[in-house]
């Protein structure tokens, strides 16, 4: 019987990337077209960095740099 392997996803955020609310080029890749924050399996970061990413996206939203709803 042939089993299907889960599709490998390419990490969006890398270790060298600086998580900052002004780094919009990176943050725009970390939200869905609807404006939702992508899960860890898509961003490719550990839990600590995902929490940091969540905070910087929320800061960017507060300053109207990113939308709340796409």
């Amino acid at each position, binding site marked *: 019987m042939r089993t299907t392997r889960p599709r490998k996803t390419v990490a969006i955020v890398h270790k060298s990337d600086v998580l900052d*609310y*002004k780094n919009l080029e990176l943050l725009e890749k970390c939200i869905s077209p609807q404006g939702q924050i992508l899960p860890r399996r898509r961003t490719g970061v550990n839990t600590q960095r995902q929490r940091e990413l969540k*905070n910087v996206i*929320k*800061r960017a*939203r*507060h*300053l*109207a*740099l*990113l*939308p*709340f*709803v796409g």
Partner: protein
Amino acid sequence: MRHLKLTYVYEGMFLIDNDLVRADWAAAKAMVTDLLEKHGATVQSARRWDERALAYPIKGRRRATYLLAYYGMDGDGIPGFQRDLEIQDGVLRYLNLRVDALPEGEDELSKAELADDFSVPEPPADDAVDDETGATEDPDTTGDEVDVPDGVADADVTQAATTDN
């Protein structure tokens, strides 16, 4: 016991109304820096970060100019400074965060604004909302299902910012 006053370096991002920027950028910048100095801060750098379209309208504005400032201040001064910012009509929104130090190159970028040949590009004219009432609503406070009081989302972020102190 003596109360120790610790001075930290803060990063402040301020959304400035484009009407003020069109009138005089230096005056718009001074509005924020004077407020900082009033609350005992030492401004290390202040510069125009960008002028861009907002992701959602704020106070009837579709576009705004971002002012990025770094300043040293006692933690005790932050609440008073934020109270004063709230009543400033020219400041549409703000975010204050504590940082470790002034980032490299920020000083040079700030000093470049003091040069004689520096001029701020004229912001586009389409920054006002088309709606005649001028009333705008943030998408986060206009949910159909949940009745969220005004400013809750803002308070959340401001609180997050102040807990970094």
